[in-house]
């Protein structure tokens, strides 16, 4: 379990420290699980990122550069071209912004972004992000556990799933107009126990900087053991419901994109290898790990399920 110490976003590690952290990691040649140590070694009072040790042996996880994270984005509402999203999303309006949390809850509530930043202490979490297209990054997110927000609204006993919705704004998200076959607004969903898992994050920034539009500003989901498309961007609605919700990619092509979409090298996709992945910034392919290396934290959620059927 990680410790949650109140901290203002402005107090999060200054950028220069990431550099020294990277050097430390490189020189020590430590494994993924040692990111916590590296963070301590920077000698700053800060929150220890949760970087769970992977269950299989893996090469060190160096942070992906800020430039790559902010210029290589899948955000179809802006463009199908990953390298074009940053430019096309530049003027996306992220303020004012509210997130409506409703449905099967005792205390439905609409949060303004300012409330969210005040109510929930922002932590740093370094997570691997594995895209279904067989590339991956390592991203230092700033955010807070989704569970903290759900606990405030108090889901009722009949709530079994959480449905998330991205803002629908075709006048700013111009690609929406030409993608008629997609049922926008973007929707995603999690089972309630997945949503309450300690790894599941609502992120508001990365590298200590406020989130940029191309990365899902002002607030997005991060579910590190699932393929990236589950981590829905620019959220305006969170609904607690009893039945499994329809999700955008699952609606478009259920054979390719399951509801669970857990990272699983044993389940093949018709176009991309799920056995290996290309880590952005590296030349050599890596083996893809079950649950993206987070099996220890999440495998128990799926006991008794056949994950080659429930993809």
């Amino acid at each position, binding site marked *: 379990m990680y410790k949650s110490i109140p901290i203002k976003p402005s107090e999060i590690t200054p950028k220069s420290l990431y550099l020294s952290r990277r050097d430390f990691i490189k020189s020590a040649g430590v494994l993924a699980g040692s990111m916590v140590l590296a963070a301590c070694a920077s000698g700053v009072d800060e929150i220890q990122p949760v970087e769970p040790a992977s269950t299989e042996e893996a090469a060190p996880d160096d942070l992906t550069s800020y430039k790559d994270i902010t*210029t290589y984005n899948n955000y179809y509402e802006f463009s199908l071209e*990953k390298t074009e999203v940053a430019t096309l999303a530049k003027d996306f309006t992220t303020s004012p912004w509210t997130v409506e949390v409703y449905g099967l809850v005792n205390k439905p509530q609409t949060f303004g972004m300012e409330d969210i930043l005040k109510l929930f202490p922002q932590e740093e979490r370094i997570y691997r992000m594995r895209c279904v297209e067989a590339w991956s990054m390592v991203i230092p997110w700033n955010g807070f556990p989704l569970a903290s927000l759900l606990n405030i609204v108090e889901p009722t006993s009949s709530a079994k799933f959480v449905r998330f919705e991205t803002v629908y704004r075709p006048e700013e998200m111009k690609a929406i107009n030409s993608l008629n076959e*997609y049922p926008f607004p973007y929707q995603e969903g999690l089972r309630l126990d997945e949503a309450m898992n300690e790894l599941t994050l609502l992120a508001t920034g990365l590298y200590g900087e406020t989130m940029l539009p191309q990365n899902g500003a002002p607030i997005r989901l991060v579910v590190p053991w699932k393929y990236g498309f589950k981590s829905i961007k620019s959220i305006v609605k969170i609904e607690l419901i009893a039945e499994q919700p329809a999700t955008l990619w699952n609606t478009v092509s259920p054979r390719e994109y399951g509801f669970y979409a857990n990272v699983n090298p044993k389940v093949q996709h018709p*176009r991309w*290898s799920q056995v*290996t992945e290309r880590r952005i910034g590296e030349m050599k*392919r890596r083996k893809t790990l079950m649950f993206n290396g987070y099996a220890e934290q999440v495998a128990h959620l799926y006991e008794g399920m056949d994950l080659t059927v429930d993809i």
Partner: protein
Amino acid sequence: MAWLPLLWMILGWVQNDLGADPIRAIMLRTGKTALIFLWFSLSCTPLFLLFGWTWVRPLRREFGLYSFFYASLHVLNFLWLDYGWDTTIIFEDMFQKPYALFGAASFFILLPMAITSWKWAFSALGPFRWKRLHQFGYLAAILAAAHYILLVKQAYAQPVLFIAVLILLFVVRFFLQKRNGRGAHHV
């Protein structure tokens, strides 16, 4: 002119300007360039049949060779930069992905065509066998088009355009050869 895509790619590589995933960028650019040259090559005869331009006919060999050159870079990028010659994962991945098999089949058709595109091969094989071998170029194009359309994610406009052009080229060739009564003499 035909070397420009390569030059542009090398420049991009050196200046670190190929985006966050340079291997993918090279994969897409070499693939697209190979496809375009193959289509150029296949359009020489229909253009000749339509407009009687004799000067385009010899270009089909040149275009074909450029197509093979970029297809080779494409394959080399896949085997070397992307998979680091790791045969286990190469075979694992290849046989799970129909598009990879279509691509490989297309390349293995272009390979003997490129090798036999010199005069000595023409005389060694004899015109009949040589032509039969080179007629497989159409199949290579069909396989390459299948390779392309199978790998795109919900963005079919470009591959559909390539296929439409290919069909048009076949139609022109078929009807004009018939009309001219030249039968199979001209390929």
